[in-house]
Every structure is written in structure tokens, then in C-alpha cells.
């Protein structure tokens, strides 16, 4: 009986942790965007400049709207590490400082990728970071020749 109970608990724990483990193992990121003037191909430096708020408007004048997963999500955490090279807290403080001085519009943070993709799909000039684009209407940006990195 005890064995059965122990096996059940183990199975439940594995069931909960396995997907996270699999996400962590498979933390590739894709950049999706909504806008004709948004270049389909960028190098990492260009992408970082856009995501850091250094570019405020696209070539057609559309305002750059950044969409990110919340930093406490795996994708958000991965985004901070790979693209921003800083922790989630530092990212928030970074944008707080810029927003406070009126230099940029802060990114919009989401709890789920579907929400993020929906936002990007509805917002011209929006650019977001997702694990893998599911919405075919979104433009997938190739970064350093890769659509996932």
C-alpha cells in the first residue's frame, strides 16, 4: 500500500515537472512581429537595439511596441537571459528608469504566449518574443539567419 502511494506521488511529481523540464530543455525563442515595414531579417544586435527600446519607430513611422512574456515565466526568464543579458528584475528596473524619464514605452508583459501573439496580431508595429509562433498571420523575424534561436 505504501509502495502504491509512493509510486503515485512520484508519478504525479514527474507529471508536473516533466513539461517544465522539457521547456527548459527546449527553450528556443522566436521573434514575431506585425508590420510591413518591420524587417523580416535582423541580426542579433539590431534585435537587441529594438528590444532595449533604442529604436522607437519603424521606418514607416509606426511606433515600436514590445511584447514580452512576464519575467517569472520560463520564456520570460529565457528572453531576459538570451536577449537582454540581464535578470528579470534588472529588466524591469531598466525599463522603469527609461519609462520614468519618458525615453521609451515600456514593454507589455503577458502571462501566456497566446495572449502575446494576439496582442502582436492586433497591434501594428508590435514585436514580441515567443517560443514558437503559432499564429500564421504573424511575421516571423529571422535573426542571424534563424527563425528560432
Amino acid at each position, binding site marked *: 500500500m505504501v509502495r502504491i502511494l509512493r509510486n503515485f506521488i512520484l508519478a504525479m511529481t514527474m507529471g508536473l515537472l516533466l513539461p517544465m523540464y522539457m521547456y527548459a530543455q527546449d527553450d528556443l525563442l522566436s521573434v514575431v512581429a506585425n508590420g510591413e515595414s518591420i524587417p523580416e531579417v535582423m541580426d542579433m544586435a539590431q534585435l537587441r537595439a529594438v528590444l532595449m527600446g533604442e529604436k522607437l519607430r519603424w521606418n514607416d513611422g509606426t511606433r515600436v511596441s514590445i511584447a514580452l512574456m512576464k519575467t517569472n515565466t520560463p520564456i520570460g526568464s529565457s528572453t531576459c537571459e538570451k536577449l537582454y543579458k540581464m535578470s528579470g528584475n534588472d529588466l524591469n528596473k531598466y525599463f522603469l*528608469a527609461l519609462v520614468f524619464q519618458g525615453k521609451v514605452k515600456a514593454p507589455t508583459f503577458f502571462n501566456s504566449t497566446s495572449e502575446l501573439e494576439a496582442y502582436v496580431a492586433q497591434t501594428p508595429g508590435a514585436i514580441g518574443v515567443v517560443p514558437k509562433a503559432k499564429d500564421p498571420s504573424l511575421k516571423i523575424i529571422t535573426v542571424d539567419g534563424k527563425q528560432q534561436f
Partner: protein
Amino acid sequence: MILSVRSKILLTVLSVVMLFALFILFYYPARQTAYLLDNYNNQIENLAKTVALGVRIALNEENFEGVETAIDFVRHDDRLNYVSIIQFDTIWEADTKNFKIQKKIFSTSPENVEVDPEAVSDDLYINKSAPFTSKIMNGEIKVSFTTTEIEQGKRQIRLASAAASITVFIIGLCIGYWLARNISKPVLALRDAAHKVGKGDLTQSVSNKSRDEIGELSVAFNKMVKDLNVARSEVNQRTHELTKEKEKSDELLLNILPLETAEELKNTGTAQAKFYDSVTVMFTDFKDFTPKSKTMSANKLVAELHDCFSRFDHIIKNYNIEKIKTIGDAYMCVAGLPVVNDTHPFEAVNAAIELRDCMLAYNKEKEAMGEHGFDVRIGIHTGPVVAGIVGVNKFAYDIWGETVNTAARLEQNSVANMINISASLYNIIKDAYDCELRGNIFVKGLGELPMYFVHGLKK
């Protein structure tokens, strides 16, 4: 310093208005300024709290919309000096038991402003702080606004207060003047009317249709003047009547007393007897009066005497001769008193001549009517007398002395229609009158006296 009613009313109203104006000028701005400052402080504090809430939400929930909205709102405020995020860092000491909070500027807008985390409000800036806490960072939002707007607000309040104060003062002045004029005008009219009434003009009337106390006073004043007018008319009528009565009594008094003696008697209540060293006393008498009186009725007799003596009265009055009295058919008068003069002998003789001629004419009138007249005998003497009043009832002015007796004797020794005078009188008038010596005639009590007839003026 005597103030008029108008000035007093005006000063009273102006005092109240001045107090109100001062209240508007000083107290009201002070209150408004305090209210403005309070509002300003609250407003800045609320802004700081709003930004702090936005920061807390941004850091805790990664939602920057709130802080973006709040900071945009603050940043676009013209009064902003700076808005800053002050980060609190806990610095532990080496023993790990004590720590201190270090305040560090995290971000400031505008960037170039130097921020003192410990700065407090002063005359130039109002600084307000609102703390925030988050899982990432603790700290406070410090908002600094200039006081320029407050100073402008104060200036505007002062200007508005001054304008309101001046307006209130001017309006108060106008109201005060209007009140003073409306109240004082009827009062002054009453005063002027009262002055005129005091000077005797009882035709005065004050017109005031108001129903207040002044209106009632005007009505009372008009009634008083009307009553005074009626009273004065009555007094005038009584005075007129009294004057007439007085004139009658004076006339009556003058009929029995000389003017000077009557005046003395009225003024002092008595008249002193006076000695006159030279007067001319005249007596007249009707010859055979007693037998004739028995032939006529008493009324007729009195009427005849009244007629004759009335003529005598008129004659002697023209010569300033004082009638003393009549005794039966005798008529006694004296010249030279009470006003002393040097012409009394002549006046007495002239009057005697006119009396005689008057009686001669009278007798002719009587004869023409078939009646008998009266033959007058006249005696005149000049000498000293004492004149005065005797008695307290029915008093009469009279003269005493030897001269009076002598004059009476001269009349008794005269003849019908002749003027018999004494030697003393003769010596005075002899040059002017045609006189005839009768010789020495014995007079009872006086012995022999030289007597003269006066016929008339010398031609």
C-alpha cells in the same frame, strides 16, 4: 469738534465698511493663500502617491501602463521641478546587527536636475515624497514643484482682494453718503425750520412723507408749530386787548394826572410832592351861578357845565396848562408845571383871554337861542406852589400854597367877563398886555392887594 448728523452717519457707515474692506484686504487673502497652499501641497502629495503606486504596480506586476500614465501627467505639468525615484538600499554593518538605509537616486525626470534625497520644501520649491515597496526595490517617489504658481496665485488673490476691497469701500461710501443724506436732510430741514420758528416765523412746515421716527418727528413738529401759531394768535389778541385797556387806563390816568407824574406813579408806585418856585395859577368862576342853577334841571345844569368846561379843557391844553380840578362852577388850572418853563405867565394870560372870549361867544350863542349864558370871572396869580398826590383811593393831583389862595381871592374879586391878576403877574406881563390898575383891594386873610385887569394884548 462738533460733528453734524450727516458726518456721524457717514463716519459710522464708513467705519463698518472700512472694517469689512480691511477684512477683505487682509484676512480673506490670508485664508485664501493658506487654502491655496494646502491644496497645492495636497495636489503634489497625491501626484507623488499616484506615481509611487504606478511604480509599485510596474515592479510587482510588470505592468507599466500606470506608471507611464502617471509620470506623463507629472512630467507635462509646467510647475514640475523634478520627479525622482529614490531607491532605499539597506547597508548592513560588519557585525551584521545594525544597518542603515542609504538613499540613492534611481531615476529622475528631467535628467539634468540634481536631486537631494533629503531636500525639504522651501520658499522656491515644494517637495513631497510617497514611499513604495516592491519585491524588486523599495524606495520613494520624490516630487518637487516650483512655488511660482503659488506666488502668482497669491498675487492674484491680493489683487482681487484689493479690487474687492476698493469696490466695497466705494459702494459703502456711496451707501453711507446716501444714508447720511437721506437721514440728515429731514433732520437739517427740521433744524432750519426750528431756527426760523425760534425767530418767530410760525409759517414753517416740514415736508416728510416717510413713516419712520423722523417722519413722526416732522408731523409732531408741524403740529407744534401750528399749535404755537394758534397760541400766538391768541396771545396777540389778548395783548392787543390788554394794550387797548392799558391805553384806556393811561388815558384815564392822564386825565387826572400830569403826564410826568403819571409816569412816575406807574414806574415807582408813588409820586413825590415837588416844590415849584414859580407857577401861574388860574381860577375861573361863573357869576350868579347858584341862582341860575336853581332855574334849570340838574341834567341841564351838568350839561351846561360840561359844555363850558370842555371848551376850557381844549383851550388850556393848547397852552400846556395843567387842569387841576373843578369845584362846582369853579375851574382851577396851573401853568408852569410839572414841566418847568419861563413862559407860564404869558401862557396863562393868553389862555385866560381865550377863555373869556370863548364864554362871550358862548353867551351870544345862548342869547341867540333865547337862553342865558354864564359870565365868567377869572383870577390869576404867579408864585410858588407845592404839587403832588394825596390819598390812596381816587387820588388826585393837586397844588398847595399861598399862591393858590391868592389866585382864588383874585377870582373872587374879579368882575364878570374880566381877568383879574396880581401885581406879581402884572410885573411880568405888563409890557406885552394892555392892563388896567384897579387899585388896592382888601382881601380876607391877605390884606390889601394891588389888582389889575387884563384887557388883551397890547396893540
